[in-house]
């Protein structure tokens, strides 16, 4: 456990005061976090970090695609993007110009479960930047010309996505997994975007953008007292609201997988995409599952899939597996692309690897190496304030505390090969995997029939029918 050097501890304490491991125990000491909740319910986390004269703000709002409603796909993303299109006191141009003038970087991104608004700024402009950040979150006006432009941008993306083979594959894959009656099973469409009214946007904003549904993390070169005062000044009077209860997907671990072929003529490659339900981050088997994904396809060139399909097979440029996990559900997916004539062979190679994983499990050597990577990589993950902030926020969104985070390596190290192999047997089920293959169906038809019985859809048709 030599991932944090002892000799540099004093320097570090002095300069930044964070991230020190106690080698004997494997504990990672995160920087001290001032974790307070304002009376209106806004959770505020402050971390002083004085390496450079910068401040990074992150506001996380628990609102995303999952919050629907059905038929209005794109509403969460549209609402988020419109924050910077005008406030009570600033036009869209003024916001962009003011941020640029102080050299700030404002970023807004809406994912399936959360929306994050971030600002990176030099300390000398921290207050000015913060005021703009607070304004776009607290006082957006959603002007008609902004709505029209951002909608148009999103419509263009819908059209562009029909030329993106990987996006096509994952859109269909999401539908097969979540079904058409859940917001996460449905991609944005022309109809869904056009059907969103200004009132829908304001309602969504009022329901979800509220202090009791958000948190604010600030890391950087500031003093905690002053920062808390400025946050209270701006966000203290932010009004509470009642966000609607989420309709969480109900993973069915026994459901047989479906097989869909998306026909896109003239492709010289076929995309193979597989997915199935995985455990959520609150499962007691969480760390085991992360290790399974690491060994199978989550560790780039060290993974079994990369070794078999690329390094030995020469069948693809990239293959990997992903474990996306939330507090309530998880998804395991595998993606690759290969030349048309190798589609079936590649599919079978993946199946062989899955079967091998289930029948024989992982080895002691693989587990030791995975653990070595996990503990070795910790300092790399905490190199910058932004990466510290992201790691902490992600953990909280998955239901963990900072205390859990500091025991991450200890938790991994307590896992045995038998633990992992038990979880593999319980949850990795090739027969339950949904399969999407995007390609020139005419050219690969014979191979497709050997994969199984499928339904075929033209690529320009909507996933939901």
């Amino acid at each position, binding site marked *: 456990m030599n991932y944090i050097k002892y000799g540099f501890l004093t*320097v570090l304490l002095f300069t930044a005061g964070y991230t020190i491991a106690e080698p004997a125990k494997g504990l990672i000491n995160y920087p001290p976090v001032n974790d307070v909740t304002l009376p209106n319910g806004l959770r505020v986390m402050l971390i002083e970090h004085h390496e450079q004269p910068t401040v990074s703000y992150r506001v996380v709002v628990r609102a995303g695609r999952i919050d629907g409603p059905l038929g209005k796909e794109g509403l969460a993303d549209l609402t988020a993007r419109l924050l910077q299109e005008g406030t009570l006191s600033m036009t869209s141009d003024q916001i962009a110009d003011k941020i640029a003038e102080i050299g700030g970087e404002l970023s807004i991104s809406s994912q399936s479960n959360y929306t994050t608004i971030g600002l990176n700024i030099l300390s000398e402009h921290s207050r000015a930047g913060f005021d703009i950040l607070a304004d776009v979150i607290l006082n957006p006006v959603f002007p008609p010309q902004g709505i029209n432009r951002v909608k148009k941008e999103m419509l263009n993306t819908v059209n562009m996505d029909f030329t993106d083979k990987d996006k096509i594959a994952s859109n269909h894959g999401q539908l097969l997994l979540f079904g058409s009656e859940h917001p996460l099973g449905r991609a944005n469409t022309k109809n869904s975007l056009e059907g969103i009214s200004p009132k829908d946007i304001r309602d969504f904003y009022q329901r979800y953008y509220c202090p009791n549904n958000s948190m604010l993390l600030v890391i950087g070169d500031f003093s905690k007292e002053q920062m808390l005062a400025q946050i209270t000044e701006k966000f203290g009077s932010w009004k509470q609201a009642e966000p609607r209860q989420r309709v969480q997907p109900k993973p069915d671990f026994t459901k047989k997988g479906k097989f869909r072929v998306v026909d896109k003529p003239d492709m010289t490659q076929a995309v193979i995409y597989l997915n199935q339900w995985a455990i959520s981050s609150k499962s007691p088997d969480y760390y085991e599952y992360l290790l399974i994904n690491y060994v199978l396809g989550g560790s780039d060139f060290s993974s079994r899939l990369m070794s078999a399909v690329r390094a030995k097979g020469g069948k693809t440029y990239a293959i990997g597996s992903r474990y996306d996990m939330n507090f309530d559900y998880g998804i395991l997916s595998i993606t690759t692309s290969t030349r048309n004539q190798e589609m079936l062979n590649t599919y079978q190679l993946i199946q062989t690897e899955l079967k091998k994983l289930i029948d024989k499990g992982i080895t002691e050597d693989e587990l030791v190496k995975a653990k070595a990577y996990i503990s070795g990589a910790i300092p790399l993950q*905490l190199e910058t304030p932004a990466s510290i902030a992201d790691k902490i926020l992600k953990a909280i969104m998955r239901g963990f505390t900072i205390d859990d985070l500091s025991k991450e390596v200890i938790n991994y190290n307590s896992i045995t090969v038998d633990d992992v192999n038990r979880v593999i047997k319980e949850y990795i089920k090739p027969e339950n995997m949904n399969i999407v293959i995007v390609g020139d169906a005419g050219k690969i038809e014979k191979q497709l029939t050997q994969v199984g019985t499928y339904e075929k859809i033209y690529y320009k048709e909507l996933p939901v029918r």
Partner: protein
Amino acid sequence: MKSVSIIIVAISVFFIADSLNCLQAAEKTDGRQYEIVSHTLANGLKVLILEKHTMPVAAVQVWYNVGSADEPNGLKGIAHLFEHMMFRGSKNFGPQDHFRLIKEAGGYCNGATSDETTVYWERIPADKLELILKLEADRMAWLKLDQSILDTERQVVMEEYRLTVDNNPIGSMDKKVRQFLFPGHPYEFGPIGRMEDIAKFSVEDCQKFFSTFYSPNNAVLIIVGDVQAEQVIKMAEAQFGFIKSAKVPGRPEMIIQKDKISAINNAQTDLPIPVTVMAFYTAGARDKDRAALELLFNCLADGRSSRLWKVLVKDKKIAEKFVADQEEGRNNGLMFFAAAHLPHLSGKIQKNILQQLENIKTSGLEDNEFTKARNQLHSEKVFERYYAEKLASSIGYSEVVRGDYKLFYKVDEEIQSVTQADIIRVANRYFNKDNMKIVCFEPKERNFLVGLAGFIKSIF
């Protein structure tokens, strides 16, 4: 393991830099001199070290002064395929060891080939430095070139070609722009090369490429992070010192015969709407106008506060999407503006872009545009100081592409000292007819309604 797609150098390499301010700030917190240590081995390998003791992390990069521009005809793509082979085994390490050993150490590694450089990099816990130097030295000295592994990597690279060019509308447009702008020039095919050439590379071709270009005197080793410079020098001597230097052929002078290239070029795209690309040749990273051009580019096209985005997308609403890029090699570069738009609007797009450029040629930039660009570029540089890897890239870029690692200290200062007169001079130097090439992409499948909408917009 990727070929850097757009001309010359990946943006992530280009925009990374640091400043004198950084050194002062670091001195304060660090209590020691924050300065690049340069040491050249007897065999010509230059070692550049920057100590940064804020986290127990190190970034290691080996920059080889070779890229796709050095490939002879018939071997287009060999620099990139060769880069893949560098990960597939040397005398003391097996064909999958490189990635595995670094991963087990908690680190990450990769490589990238551009027109003029090939870079191998690692990000690791600092106490694993010796392992990394061993791995880098072993492949520099004793790379293994095995026929069956070459055949496998050939297939992998062909898949990369299909993935990033054949089945990727943006990638295939990128390739067409190159072919229009650089016919018969070493930049013509880019790092990914040509399929028919890739199919033919032999072990002998790779061996020859290796012995011609991969010698220590044609490389720069950069280490940034929680290391001691003196120890690093000792380690580098021990690991690399025995490797023999070799005579490396110079890169032939690369002249672009602009007058022989047609001003307007037409092609097809898989995208659903047309795209207009306006490109301007620039003089590259070693030119005295480099900083002025970067500042000008920032004002024109970087973000939602930039002139062209505001005019084309926000105010006149004639572009559906607008992107721009600026790329530099040593002595050549390219700046381009690209807009995706409804049919029949290409003329309007061009006219509006030209109008903005003409304005700058006579009146320069507004005061607040200087403020915005300077502050944005300065801020970017301060944030980059957190990342050992970005600092290493910046040092490598300064040394290999710009010609002197000491320029690393000056990037911010150069930007801050750009004047209005510089901007007007640079705009006049580059934004003129002789220097401009246009590529118009039309969608393969036409949609009547979309066309009609564009036609109406083109009138009003």
